[in-house]
């Protein structure tokens, strides 16, 4: 530190946070002793910091509730991994069926009201509808803190068997780990055009992306298109009659390289 370096606003903040080395702290103190306005402000910030810490301290002193008990969470995960879809479905599928029924009802009602709205203008093209369905399901499931996926990555084989059977088409999962996205698992979702398979991925910071897959009415291919609705972006394409829409809380542009990678893999897998 140079002696005589001017005192900055950042020095005041760092002073409050006890983040200055001793020499700089002394320089700041010296400055404050001759600048009462700054001294008052720094004192107020310090009092504020103490008040915040005191007000929030009791939360960290509460006993940790059972559902946040780490040993239990680890055990629950091991149990889930060991459990096979076929040997012990448990309550999961039933809950999922109930959710799917609810979504069909909502989707049906939404579809009906959309019908009136879209009838007047040019109707949405198939890729836009697929994107819309992907975004709707993304909003419901990616935001779910408790159970975003019905079957976890460890059950990938069973998951693919299940959704392939329901979609009556061979479904594959692209591996996006090279791009930093880990496969979380997936679920069957309801769309206005029948069942779809939705796969979820997240990065090391917990950001989630999802890909919806369902058969299209046409058998052909469709090039990639970017879509954006509020914060959610989507990149959609079709390959041999299967529609794919990759969506996330991000710009469609940012998703495009991931979609390229997914399409490349899917072409070789299917």
């Amino acid at each position: 530190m140079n002696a005589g370096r001017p005192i900055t606003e950042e020095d005041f903040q760092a002073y409050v946070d006890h983040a200055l080395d001793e020499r700089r702290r002394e320089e700041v103190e010296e400055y404050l002793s001759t600048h009462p306005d700054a001294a008052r402000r720094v004192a107020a910030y310090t009092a504020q910091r103490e008040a915040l810490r005191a007000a929030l301290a009791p939360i960290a002193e509460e006993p940790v509730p059972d559902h946040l008990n780490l040993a239990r969470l680890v055990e629950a995960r091991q149990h889930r991994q060991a459990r096979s879809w076929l040997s012990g479905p448990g309550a999961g599928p039933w809950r999922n069926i109930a959710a799917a029924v609810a979504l069909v009802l909502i989707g049906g009602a939404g579809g009906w009201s959309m019908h009136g709205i879209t009838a007047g203008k040019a109707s949405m093209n198939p890729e836009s509808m697929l994107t819309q369905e992907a975004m709707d399901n993304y909003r419901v499931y990616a935001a779910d803190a408790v159970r975003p996926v019905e079957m976890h990555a460890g059950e990938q084989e069973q998951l693919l068997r299940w959704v392939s059977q329901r979609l009556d088409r061979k479904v594959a999962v692209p591996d996006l780990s090279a791009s930093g996205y880990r496969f979380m698992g997936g679920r069957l979702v309801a769309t206005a055009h029948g069942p779809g398979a939705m796969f979820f991925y997240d990065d090391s910071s917990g950001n989630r992306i999802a890909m919806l897959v369902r058969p299209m009415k046409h058998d052909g291919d469709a090039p990639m298109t970017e879509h954006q609705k509020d914060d959610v972006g989507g990149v959609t394409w079709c390959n041999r009659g299967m529609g794919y829409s990759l969506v996330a809380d991000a710009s469609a542009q940012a998703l495009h390289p991931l979609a390229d990678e997914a399409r490349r893999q899917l072409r070789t897998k299917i």
Partner: protein
Amino acid sequence: MNDMMLLIEPLIPPLRRYARALVKDHATADDLVQDCLERAITRWHQRRQDGDARTWLFTILHNLAVSHMRQNRRRGSHLTLDDGVDEAMIARPATQEDALHHADVMQALQTLPEDQRSVLLLVSVEDLTYAEAARVLDIPIGTVMSRLARAREKLLQKMEGAPAQEAAKGGATIHRPAFGAGIFRRVK
């Protein structure tokens, strides 16, 4: 596995504190922490060896909380009448005077924009260094510093402004436009 338990377990209380200060609703906050812990367990071996567990966990939790808040905003206002200040948040006050003070500071905290609030909490309450806070929030250190300065100044104005405002209104209900959806708060 033991290694993970030893590193993560002591962080659970601070993670709960951060989550609750950000989203307020107790159950939602704990759900976010649970989600964060489950991800940490699943991806423990994937974490960067050069980063420390605390910064990593706060990053996961912060992103979950922000995405939760964004979802709520998109759905429109989810604020309810009792959303002003959560009295239960100020647990076990030593004295009545303390309780009032704590309520004021928490009330003022909730008026800060989310990006300023998170910086202030991570640095002032959770004792993250500026560099760690920058990693959690994925912003440059300079931005951490400027947000911190703005947060403190704004909080100061709120705290100093509040009593005068209440006195002027004669202790009746007052309107706090800063809360967004027209929230009325009962004043003691």
